């Protein structure tokens, strides 16, 4: 009896969800949808593998990787200065207890900037910049740079603050400049973790640079979108397979690098 009650309660909770998401699984199986889905799925076989198309796919795959790499590089240009400016560990006034009011407000403001950069999804940045700079990889690179800059900056600051700060604090106390304390104290201690996080984010950026293609930011995604709009299942199948292989490869490279870094 209590199970029945729980079941009913679950149904009552789920009902608005089902209505809001227009959840009608039977539409998948009505005649028209079945016919078009079946035709699309059937057109997946055989995947298109002629040399001309493969060359195109190869070029777009490289462009996808290049967009991700360029985006992460520019993201680092945003993240590194903001990290250095916003991390609490490099505060001179905090050496003697509490940080002074002005530096505190300054650091907090920079953190909020990082959070704002990060909380706008890269797809939205891409949509905006496609309007500004036109279709093509420029919008994708800027979108990844902004979102990942925010993400990297925030996590870098957290890594620096969570580690052992004894060395850098000693350096600062003995009159080292903040840059010296960072280069000789914080960086050697946290270099492996920082690099491994960056490599992990590079892997994520490859995945999202494919997605950005769907709004016109170039690369494999844009090509996939074109083929889908023309219901060319064979091309879609090839590109999906290439994409899965690319993700697996990036995954393996990044896992290997992170293992080596320890």
């Amino acid at each position, binding site marked *: 009896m209590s199970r029945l009650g729980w079941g009913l309660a679950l149904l009552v909770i*789920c009902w*608005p*969800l*089902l209505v*809001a*998401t*227009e*959840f*009608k699984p039977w*539409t*998948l199986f009505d005649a028209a*949808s079945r016919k*078009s*889905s079946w035709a*699309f799925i059937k057109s997946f076989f055989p995947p298109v593998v002629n040399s001309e198309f493969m060359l195109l796919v190869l070029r777009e795959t*490289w*462009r996808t*990787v*290049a*967009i991700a*790499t*360029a985006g992460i*590089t520019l993201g680092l240009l945003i993240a590194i200065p903001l990290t250095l400016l916003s991390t609490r560990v490099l505060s001179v006034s905090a050496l003697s207890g509490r940080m002074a009011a002005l530096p505190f407000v300054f650091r907090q403001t920079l953190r909020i900037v990082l*959070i*704002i950069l990060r*909380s*706008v*999804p890269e*797809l*939205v940045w891409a*949509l905006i910049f496609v*309007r*500004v*700079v*036109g279709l*093509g*990889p*420029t919008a994708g*690179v*800027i979108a990844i740079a902004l979102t990942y800059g925010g993400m990297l900056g925030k996590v870098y600051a957290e890594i620096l603050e969570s580690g052992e700060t004894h060395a850098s604090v000693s350096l600062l106390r003995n009159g080292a400049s903040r840059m010296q304390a960072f280069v000789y104290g914080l960086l050697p201690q946290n270099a492996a973790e920082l690099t491994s996080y960056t490599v992990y984010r590079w892997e994520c950026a490859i*995945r*999202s640079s*494919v*997605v950005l293609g*769907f*709004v016109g930011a*170039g690369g494999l*995604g844009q090509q*996939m*979108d074109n083929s*889908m709009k023309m*219901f060319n299942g064979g091309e*879609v199948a090839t590109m*999906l397979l290439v*994409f*899965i292989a690319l*993700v*697996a490869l990036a995954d393996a490279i990044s896992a290997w*690098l992170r293992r*080596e870094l320890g």
Partner: protein
Amino acid sequence: MANNVPQSANEPFRLPPPLLSARCRGCWFVAGILVLVVASFASLDLRWSEFFSAESGASTLRFAKEFFPPDLSAAFVSKVWVGTLETLAMSLLGTMLAVAFGVLLAVPASRFYADDPAPLRGFTRLILNALRSIPELVWAALLLISAGLGPFAGTLALAFHTTGVLGRLFAEAIENAPPEPGFALRAQGVGTVRVFLYATLPQVLPQMMSYTLYRWENNIRAAAVLGVVGAGGLGQLLSFHMGLFQMSKTATILFAMICLVALVDVASYVLRRVMTR
């Protein structure tokens, strides 16, 4: 090797390491990254000159100015509110479906005891990996053909991708669970299904719960932008109004989207703080 070195009276003189050596892995790593970065920038036709030109700056400014003031009329705000609820509903239902299918697929994908033959393990893991490696947005674009425009396609897309992720995590949790309780039951002659229900499941349930919450958090973020390809929620409103260049309406939607994402971030941070204390 250290034992073979004859003891010297004073510290053995050590040469500094050579600056570049073929065995210096760090150097190869750095060189590889430099090559990758230079090749990336060189091969992309990035139009920085266009982006940084005065004309483009002016158009960017004009573009940014059009965002203000955001459209805050009651009719439109209520429309955005409905879109936000739709986004939340999509993420919740998608996650719930994914939990159901994830458990269904995780069971054949895991070994319950050391010598479990688990004949379907490799095959199910292959399926889970395929589901997982295609992003939600690509699933949504693919599913539009069968499910039509609207939140249903988005929900299914979230469910497909998350099934892959959760199925794999669940399978790993099941395989890593301590085997002793299951072994004890099996030694008493209890059947496989009941061993799973009474020995394995209670042990992995907390872990499954936390994975599910984590994925739900991710899915709210994903659902917000999924609509860009026409799969419902805030994203669909966004691409619709941006396509019509109604920038004040776009600004409202963007604001709602950022608020949603920020709210989820704060909620998960606070919950984590409370729960781990």
